[in-house]
């Protein structure tokens, strides 16, 4: 900085180091506890020197909570949400920025409002919709008298039903249905120079070609940032998967954590619980560390 302040510098280092310890200590404690055996992990105070049972515990946790398929499910779901967001938000933002049609502002506000209400607060009715995704459309047909009309004309009774409980689409689609990414793309598209559009049109490119060959390559940075944020966000979802996946074959890694909590009265197997926690912490940590630049950028850009 601009002046010499040795005392202040000393305190700065001291406080920052305390902050560093505060952030890293839980990670370290989890890793160390995961390396102890049953007796050592319950020692008071627990020894901070790593024990020797690390791989044994990891393996036990892996088998107890059946983490292999669960991690795979988490990956599928997180990738699905990230990919869905990246694609659908780009399409919508393109439509909102590059076209003039009646009702455009209405669509803009309809999407904007979804930013306000996160899934958690409307969880009960959303669950009912996922139990039968076609229910809204069925109700609309019934209420408008259309299903009566169809039945009269064709003799077919309309009753649509498609349950998405315990399926990947049921997990993924409701999480994609918010506006987070749309505005990120919109901000970016608005900064793309008009000359590019003019040049593309001069060369005879229609909207589709312009979108694929000019806009998408330009928004690569945005895609990386949005993809990273959405992957982490989806990986860390808890309440929604907990409700939707009653069947073990679609359970997520994060929701399995509950099975690792030591029971009251049972053996306090904290070493296994911590090993499981560690396994579940690692994939998002790798993403954060490797994609740090995009992560920070995505965080700041999506929230503004």
């Amino acid at each position, binding site marked *: *900085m601009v002046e010499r302040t040795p005392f202040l510098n000393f305190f700065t280092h001291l406080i920052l180091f305390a902050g560093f310890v505060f952030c890293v200590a839980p990670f370290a*404690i989890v890793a160390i506890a995961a390396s102890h055996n049953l007796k050592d*992990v319950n020692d008071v105070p627990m020894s901070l020197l790593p024990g020797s049972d690390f791989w044994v515990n990891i393996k036990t946790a892996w088998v107890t909570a059946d983490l292999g398929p669960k991690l795979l499910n988490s990956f599928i779901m997180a990738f699905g949400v990230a990919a869905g967001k990246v694609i659908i938000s780009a399409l919508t933002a393109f*439509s909102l920025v590059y076209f003039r*049609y009646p009702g455009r502002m209405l669509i803009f506000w309809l999407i904007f409002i979804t930013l306000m209400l996160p899934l958690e607060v409307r969880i009960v*009715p959303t669950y009912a919709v996922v139990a039968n995704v076609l229910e809204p459309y069925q109700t609309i047909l019934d209420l408008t008298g259309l299903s009566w009309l169809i039945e009269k004309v064709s003799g077919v009774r309309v009753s649509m039903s498609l349950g998405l409980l315990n399926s990947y689409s049921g997990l993924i689609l409701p999480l994609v249905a918010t506006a987070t990414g749309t505005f990120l793309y919109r901000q970016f598209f608005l900064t793309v120079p008009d000359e590019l559009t003019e040049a593309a049109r001069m060369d005879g490119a229609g909207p589709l070609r312009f979108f694929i060959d000019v806009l998408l390559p330009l928004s690569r940075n945005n895609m990386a940032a949005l993809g990273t944020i959405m992957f982490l966000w989806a990986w860390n979802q808890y309440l929604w998967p907990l409700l939707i996946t009653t069947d073990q074959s679609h359970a997520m890694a994060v929701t399995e954590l509950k099975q690792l909590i030591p029971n009251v009265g049972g053996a306090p197997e904290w070493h296994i*619980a911590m090993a499981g926690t560690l396994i579940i912490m690692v994939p998002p940590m790798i993403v954060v560390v490797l994609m740090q630049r995009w992560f920070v950028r995505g965080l700041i850009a999506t929230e503004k």
Partner: protein
Amino acid sequence: MEKRVTFSRSTIGILFAVPQLLLIFTFFYWPAGQAVYWSLTLQQPWGGGNIWVGLDNFRSILSNADYWNSITASLIFAAISTGLAMVIALVLAALTDRQLAGSWLYRVVLIWPYGIAAPALALAFRFILAPEAGFMAVVNRVWPGFWDPGLDGADAMASIIVAFSWKYVGYNFIFFLAAFQAIPRSLMEAAAMDGSGVLRRFWDIQFPLITPTIFFLLVINITESFQDSFGIVDIMTSGGPANATNLMVYKIYSDGFKGLDYSGAAAQSIILMVLIVALTIVQFRFIERRVHYR
């Protein structure tokens, strides 16, 4: 801001928006409408559709002591955890922004906690703060019975606050640091030339310039404390002991899916929605003001 050059084929334009519109209609507007409908009706216990009860659901919720207890717990949780997470992050960001040797390390590491799933960090903290093993057990050896989140409501509340704040320190840190770094260096250097010390520069230059970020984070932290707390509560305390940590979203979940009281849960959802929308509107007013600043 609008584009000068656009495409004229509006049918194609609308088609691009259709997937998003279908999704938000099915999974957002319909459920939100459904919640309003349920909150105003009562499901018959033996089937046969819903009967209209007007505002009775809200009346019965609002006259329920458990619900007020849940609101109080949520507000206490929101206030303390937001305060803790923001003050710690602000101090760390201000000090990192002094750019002493090694500050890159803090810039990298302090963000990590935010990447962790709330339930995973909750389980980690459940161990760290467990009364019989882990680290609070040491304190319990010295003063027996001092700490027991399983029995004492205040201890349970303290543990979920610690876990939540730990995660959001990293989040707030990113935004504070970005805000500090957006302040022109020349401003700080000019102030230093005029003889102002580090603290004076902080209060008279940096702090006023980052107030928009502070308001923004205040709103985000409070709304997140309503939503993101679910995993932490479910893993660490399950709403107990004696409902001391039965926060609003957790109560919606347990009333709706364990108690199967859809109407009551829907009414609670509506109240929570109104609360969050009100907070968001406040936030937009501050964002408008931020545009004026520049």
